């Protein structure tokens, strides 16, 4: 590969879009070419800069969109179901037409009555058409999306035995101090699918004491993939800022978190502005390290400098 070929391929290389042979050739060339090493460093730098142009979606906006969609679909879905049933088609032979509201009302009441009566009947007597005397009644409770099939065993007489694990929804109310509510909130904080849920749980647990809450918050600031959730958890961790475990987590965030806002929040909690600071040699060493390695946040660097200056620590090696 020539220098020119390498330089035009650097972006694709960083995106991992070169094939194996091209990647190998590029790496071999860069290892022995100082000019291309400089180009690669520059390429990496603008890639990082470009990342600052991406805006995190406000969580409120996501929640709002979900609510609007649910509302629209509920309305639209109801309409579609009505069309699908097209009750008018089969009601017409009985002399009922859609034009008269009184007929509609009468028909609707009749359908409600039928539905209510049959639900009660099935509840007592089992599902109609059950071939095994009601043993498959529970099928009416199954929701395919939340049911997880664990085992299938064919039996005699066309019978199949299916072991199903299903999550059933229910509403639980209580205060955050209640043990069961607290456990649910702590579990929701680790919900991998929904950052909105995680933020809500952190918000509700904010101000609650206890090592379980602290440890869950620490896990969140260390591992949560969403920067907004990490920020929220950091806010909630403020009350535990004197604990060693919390301070370790804050140091970790300062050194490793990819989001500059999160790192700024961490330094503000570790070394609050205008407060007497209790800086351990270990923390001073971390701050010195950050002074050297902080990639983009001038704020974090400036605060580290200020803290080290306030405690008369040297700026290089402690």
């Amino acid at each position: 590969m020539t220098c020119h070929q390498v330089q035009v391929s650097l972006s694709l290389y960083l995106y991992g879009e070169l094939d194996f042979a091209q990647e190998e050739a590029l790496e071999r060339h860069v290892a022995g070419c100082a000019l291309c090493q400089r180009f690669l460093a520059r390429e990496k730098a603008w890639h990082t800069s470009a990342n600052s142009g991406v805006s995190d979606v406000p969580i409120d906006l996501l929640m709002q969109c979900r609510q609007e969609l649910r509302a629209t679909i509920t309305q639209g879905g109801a309409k579609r179901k009505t069309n699908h049933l097209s009750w008018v088609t089969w009601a017409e032979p009985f002399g009922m037409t859609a034009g008269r509201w009184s007929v509609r009302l009468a028909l609707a009441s009749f359908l409600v009555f039928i539905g209510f009566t049959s639900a009660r009947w099935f509840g007592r007597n089992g599902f109609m058409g059950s071939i095994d005397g009601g043993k498959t009644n529970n099928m009416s409770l199954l929701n395919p999306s939340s049911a997880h099939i664990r085992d299938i065993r064919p039996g005699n007489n066309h019978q199949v035995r299916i072991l199903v694990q299903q999550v059933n929804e229910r509403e639980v109310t209580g205060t955050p101090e209640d043990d069961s509510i607290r456990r649910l909130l702590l579990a929701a904080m680790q919900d991998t699918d929904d950052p909105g849920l995680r933020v809500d749980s952190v918000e509700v647990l904010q101000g609650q004491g206890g090592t379980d809450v602290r440890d869950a918050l620490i896990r969140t600031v260390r591992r949560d993939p969403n920067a907004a959730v990490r920020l929220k958890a950091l806010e909630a961790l403020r009350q535990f800022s004197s604990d060693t475990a919390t301070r370790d987590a804050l140091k970790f965030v300062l050194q490793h978190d990819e989001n500059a806002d999160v790192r700024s929040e961490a330094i503000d909690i570790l070394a609050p502005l205008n407060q007497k600071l209790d800086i351990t040699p270990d923390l001073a060493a971390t701050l010195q390290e950050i002074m050297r390695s902080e990639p983009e946040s001038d704020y974090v660097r400036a605060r580290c400098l200020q803290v080290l200056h306030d405690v008369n620590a040297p700026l290089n090696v402690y």
Partner: protein
Amino acid sequence: MRRASQRTDEKELIRAAQRGDPDAFEQLVRSYDQNVLRMAFNLLHSEEDARDIYQEVFLRVFRNLPRFRFECSFSTWLYRIVANLCLDQIRKRKVRKESSPAVETPSGEVDRLQFIPERRADVDPQRQLMSTEVKIRINEVLDELTPRERIVFQMRHFQGMRLRAIGEALGVTEEAAKNCLFRATQKMRAALGDFV
């Protein structure tokens, strides 16, 4: 192994949603909606437009899901809808000349990105200034890209999608998507050179 089981789960979810199960549809939406909203928001820089795109995308998915026949992956199908809607919106803006990053205010022209609230903006004016400058520059160069270059760059750089998937979503070959990305990165490199 995990990816394969995720694919199976997703298939089950799609089938359940096709049968009219609202919970399955909601789960399906939740698997993708953050990415869809982020992509629309970052491409259009407007909460209102991003919200419209979100609604339109998932309503189209809802309406057309019964006809989805697994001929391509669900994500490809979904991102095809997202890409088409975003491309339309970008093109409409170009026609309406709304694409300029600047907006008129009583105190003169101000970049529209400055109206996007920045978290902890009060903390460090210098950091905010630098970050705003980079954002302005990125926005300027994104605006100079063709709609297709812009969407390819967004999908690859910010969404982390593979070029093959991008090509499928846009209905072009992987090679064409690669060329688009190449042109976009050249322009971005030139524009961000001063900041690195």
